[in-house]
């Protein structure tokens, strides 16, 4: 008797579970390649990481990156993707892509948007044309773009607001999820993820978790967070969600984040992350290092002939000194590229060491070591102490 054929476009294999925390190391198989989790996904909003070629990104070990439906949908547009055969071909990227639905722009471009049950109406700042983004339209554009993972259109509200709007958005997100599932045409090659909403209200989050986990989607995202809310509230919503979400499906924490956030939220059971921080901060002259940040603009770097990080294997650290980078940072475009390459490598290396620590069942030691390097005077942020304590890690 032959084994049942797996038609799914996604499989998750849990390789190891931490015996102390909720962390897990997995292998996520997607149409274009396998991704090791926990994974950090760099953001290439308009189809490229600013200044980086796909080849350079491949060299860093990156297996999956993000593109944005709102931006790509208006420029170059779904029609062109249909003609070309998708974003992978258009940008020359052989590995995985994930597209956000365009929902986040409802928050980031809130002055330019209007939400109704039908969808979101955006006025485009570049060409003054209106775009009505419905769940159906978002899925249609994402089907054309062709990413391996696509996100439902959700009704997103800023995490800093409260009141009835939050409940309205949560309810609408469930209804929009169903419309997205209905509209999705390419289930064999593209995985539609649901996005849990509910703001910072555990009652609302629980309702949403209950409802959405009834739907048969390949993965879940935790949305509506990482928008400037109090970190003490943030982690509680994250851990509530990972407690509830099915273990055999990936958990994607959207918009996170800083290195400390990645380490803590991995302990809370998240598998996938994305954030513009490492690439954006690179363009402003800041490099990420094990002890935190290095501002290359500072005078102290002018005569420092060491690389950014002596233990980093990226092409920037192998060739250049801090002194050299100091002369060009924020002045020559090459500086943005060199720092972006380093910061991406830092993130990839960080995630790899998180994964290895989980596999060796040494994650608590790893976390302590990491946190001590970041906070040498042991002045840990309160939320990190509480969040880690909730999963049995006591920071020394």
């Amino acid at each position, binding site marked *: 008797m032959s084994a049942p054929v797996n038609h799914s476009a996604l499989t998750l294999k849990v390789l190891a579970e931490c015996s102390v925390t909720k962390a897990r190391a997995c292998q996520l198989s997607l149409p274009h390649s396998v991704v090791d989790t926990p994974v950090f996904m760099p953001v290439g909003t308009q189809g490229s990481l600013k*200044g980086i*070629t796909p080849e*350079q990104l491949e060299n860093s070990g990156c297996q999956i990156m993000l593109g944005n439906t709102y931006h790509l949908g208006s420029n170059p547009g779904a029609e062109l993707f249909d003609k070309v055969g998708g974003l992978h071909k258009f940008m020359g990227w052989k590995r995985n892509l994930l597209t956000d639905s365009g929902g986040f722009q409802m928050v980031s471009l809130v002055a330019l948007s209007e939400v109704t049950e039908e969808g979101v109406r955006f006025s485009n700042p570049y060409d003054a044309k209106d775009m009505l983004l419905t769940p159906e339209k978002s899925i249609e554009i994402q089907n054309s773009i062709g990413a391996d993972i696509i996100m439902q259109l959700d009704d997103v509200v800023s995490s800093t607001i409260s009141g009835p709007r939050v409940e309205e958005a949560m309810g609408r997100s469930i209804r929009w999820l169903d419309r997205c599932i209905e509209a999705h045409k390419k289930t064999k090659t593209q995985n539609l993820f649901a996005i849990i909403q509910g703001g910072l209200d555990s009652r609302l989050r629980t309702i949403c978790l209950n409802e959405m986990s009834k739907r048969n989607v390949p993965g879940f995202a935790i949305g509506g967070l990482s928008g400037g809310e109090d970190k003490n509230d943030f982690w509680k919503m994250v851990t509530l969600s990972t407690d509830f979400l099915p273990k055999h499906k990936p958990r994607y924490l959207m918009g996170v984040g800083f290195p400390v956030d990645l380490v803590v939220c991995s302990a809370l059971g998240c598998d996938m992350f994305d954030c513009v921080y490492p690439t954006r901060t690179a363009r402003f002259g800041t490099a990420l290092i094990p002890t935190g940040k290095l501002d290359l603009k500072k005078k102290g770097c*002018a*005569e420092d*002939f060491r690389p950014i990080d002596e233990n980093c294997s990226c*092409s920037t650290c192998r*060739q*250049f*000194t801090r*002194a*050299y980078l100091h*002369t*060009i940072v924020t*002045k*020559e*475009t*090459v*500086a943005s*590229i*060199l720092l972006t*390459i380093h910061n991406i490598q830092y993130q990839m290396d960080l995630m790899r060491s998180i994964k290895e620590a989980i596999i060796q069942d040494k994650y608590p030691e790893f976390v302590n070591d990491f946190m001590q390097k970041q906070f040498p005077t042991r002045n840990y942020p309160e939320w990190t102490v509480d969040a880690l304590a909730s999963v049995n890690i006591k920071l020394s």
Partner: protein
Amino acid sequence: MKFSLRSVSQRGGRLATISELGRHGDKTVTTPMCLVFTQAGTIPHLTNDMVQKLGKHAYPVHLPLPLLLESHEILQKYSNGIGDFLALKHHLLYLSVQDSTIRPPEGFNEKSFVSLWGRSGRLNVDVDKFMSVQEAFKPDWYQALCDSDAGKVGSRKRAHKSVERTLAYLDRCLEKHKESEVLRHSCIFGSIEGGSVAEERELSAKETAKRPVAGFVLEGLDTNGPLDSVLPLCENGKKEIIQSILNELPDEKPRILHGPLDPANILAAVELGIDIFDSTYLF
């Protein structure tokens, strides 16, 4: 450095091979040749891994001094030279005095120093400082300090000054070059000045040709704008300016013409007998 002419066409264009490139061992380059422009030590928008894809075309690199001058003290402390600092040490490095994408204002050069315009403004460079920079940077080829401000069009006096000063700078640079252990493998280029005044240009060319330089740079032709006085190079009146200079120069040394030349003008310049160009046209 050894410049070997392989053939000269009837109309004046030359094919040559340059060998004995100091620290580069057996490597050679052929002319006509284009130098890859850099800005503050980087090839604009291209990281080194991308540059490698250009292969041998990216081998000769042009480092204009103005935006690098602020790094003088750093390079002295670094002590491994500019090639190493920029991760370009496997490239042939040529350091020019001015940056042909920056148009310096007129009237700021004095008798004993030249003004270079960096990021934080004007820097005055005399021969001592200039040669100290060369010793810290350790380029393969460099243009000797020169006064390329030929004043208003037709101004004989200022044109003559630029010729005189440039020759004086050249002689002192040559003296210091000879004494320098560090610059043993580097080659020094002399500059032809004289602006719009024919007699001054010829004088400059004749005199510079007498000095033991590795090659020549045609300067001072930016009377109103980049190479304004000589473009388009195929036109009568314009090409004579270049021709009159080249008539005074020996055949067996290379000639550099800096500045944004489009392909048509490059072809015209090659026919006149120019060997080396830069890629500032792209910027």
